[in-house]
């Protein structure tokens, strides 16, 4: 590859923007293209949690931890994006979950990660607003949070400051292959944009861009709802989630009300820098519809009040939904496509794209420009899926 190659990044969500940031930092010339505005896809319909607390010990948590470190550096480098590092909590609903939470903490501590189990007294000391019957929980000290809208804009802005060409409102029609290699993209307007490499960072739209080339990747939209409170008293400064949704990792059944089970609702409480809080979350495969379903909204509100009875008087001012780019093993794809030199995929981050943007962008820059990769890219290869299905969590 040339010393200063021209890399076309398709999709200016958090993943494309982070890729553009690291590529330009490493000296590449970048064109960052989006069909809408910068950050108009899933990256503006989500929370800003940067989590290690729910990652499996091993590669999963290593990737998350490297991303947390890179993000910490980005926060010094880029203008403010409401980055904070308050840690995060998982709270248990029942005795079965307490037992599994202890096991989870044991595994994570063995990996040297900053986890602590909190018994009844400790969890209520840390989180005084919790319902009295919450039996225990755990804490992860390295977890951080940010404003995902601002973060995406800051990354794109940083790339632009290093002369990246930002092309919003330009749908990419086709990826151009010549002599078996990726040579550029054709915009819907007809314009041909030539490049030395093409990175497809189009989130849930990635399969549609690759399909015409006969390349199939199993990324599917998995809907999630969020509720936004009005400004008012907060219920603590750190983010709190329920342990329940990790139960499948232990082959145990989660015990929760039918509506929560039906819509995949689990408590996520996230205080923001704007003195309000967000409540999540739901997980559903219901196609491409991003409208807000009142039944799901209600279920999220109920689940939140189970853990925080004092929220009954809090005000919800709106709700919205986004589509997570799901993959069968819940790892993203960050990889060149075999047999098509110059064609790269960076997509499929499901519920972790904000948190994993830094490590993904850095890895793309390493791989595309031929540097040594910041993490082992093996588990993220595009063709690792032999069939759809498999582990389904995260």
């Amino acid at each position, binding site marked *: 590859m040339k010393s200063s190659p021209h890399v076309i990044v398709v999709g200016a969500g958090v993943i494309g923007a982070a890729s553009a940031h690291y590529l330009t930092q490493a000296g590449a010339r970048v064109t960052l293209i989006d069909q*809408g*505005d*910068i*950050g*108009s896809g899933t990256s*503006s319909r989500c929370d800003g949690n940067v989590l290690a607390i729910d990652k499996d010990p091993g590669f999963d948590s290593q990737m998350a931890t490297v991303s947390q470190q890179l993000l910490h550096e980005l926060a010094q480098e880029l*203008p403010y994006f409401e980055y904070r590092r308050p840690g995060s909590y998982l709270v248990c609903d029942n005795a079965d979950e307490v037992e599994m939470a202890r096991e989870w903490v044991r595994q994570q501590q063995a990996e040297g990660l900053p986890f602590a189990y909190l018994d009844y007294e400790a969890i209520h000391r840390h989180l005084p607003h919790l319902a009295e019957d919450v039996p225990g929980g755990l804490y992860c000290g390295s977890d951080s949070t940010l404003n995902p*809208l*601002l973060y995406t*804009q800051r990354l794109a*802005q940083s790339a632009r400051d290093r002369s990246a060409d930002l092309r*919003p*409102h330009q749908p990419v029609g086709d990826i151009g292959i010549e002599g078996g290699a990726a040579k550029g993209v054709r915009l819907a307007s007809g314009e041909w944009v030539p490049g030395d490499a093409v990175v497809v960072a189009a989130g849930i739209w990635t399969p549609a861009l690759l399909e015409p080339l006969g390349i199939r990747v199993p990324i599917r939209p998995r809907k999630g709802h969020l509720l*936004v409170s*009005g*400004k008012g008293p907060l219920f603590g400064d750190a983010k709190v989630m329920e342990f329940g949704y990790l139960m499948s990792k232990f082959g145990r059944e989660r015990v929760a009300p039918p509506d929560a089970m039906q819509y995949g609702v689990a408590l996520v409480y996230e205080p923001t820098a*704007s003195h309000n809080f967000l409540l999540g979350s739901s997980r559903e495969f219901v196609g491409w519809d991003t409208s*807000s379903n*009142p039944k799901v*909204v*209600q279920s999220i*509100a*109920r689940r*939140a*009040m189970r853990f925080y009875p004092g*929220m*009954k*008087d*809090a*005000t*919800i*001012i*709106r*709700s*919205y939904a986004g589509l997570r780019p799901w993959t069968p093993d819940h790892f993203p794809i960050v990889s060149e496509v075999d047999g098509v030199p110059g064609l790269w995929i960076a997509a499929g981050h499901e519920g972790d794209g904000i948190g994993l943007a830094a490590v993904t962008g850095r890895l793309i820059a390493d791989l595309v420009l031929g540097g040594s990769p910041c993490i082992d890219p093996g588990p993220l290869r595009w063709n690792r899926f032999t069939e759809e299905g498999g582990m389904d969590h995260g």
Partner: protein
Amino acid sequence: MAKDAPSHEDDAVIVCRCEALTWGDVKQAMEAFQPTSLRQLKSVTRWGMGICQGRVCRPMMAATTVEDQTEAAFRLVVRPPFKPVAMNILGHEGEKV
């Protein structure tokens, strides 16, 4: 020329009451991010994200010079539950009491 060169007073005008956002804040964001739609401007300034959900400030924001002021860019602003609602009501709507 006074019209083309806004004074410091103009900058101090609150354009979004709920989020305590001034015209100066908006101008700064326009310069830093060069947004191409009101939606993108919203994501960097929080205009329209307050308790009134933009009912008060939307006309004011239409005075900005972003390109995309289409119906769609506005439609994204108001989202259910449309009116602020207390969580205990939201959580028990549709149930017999």
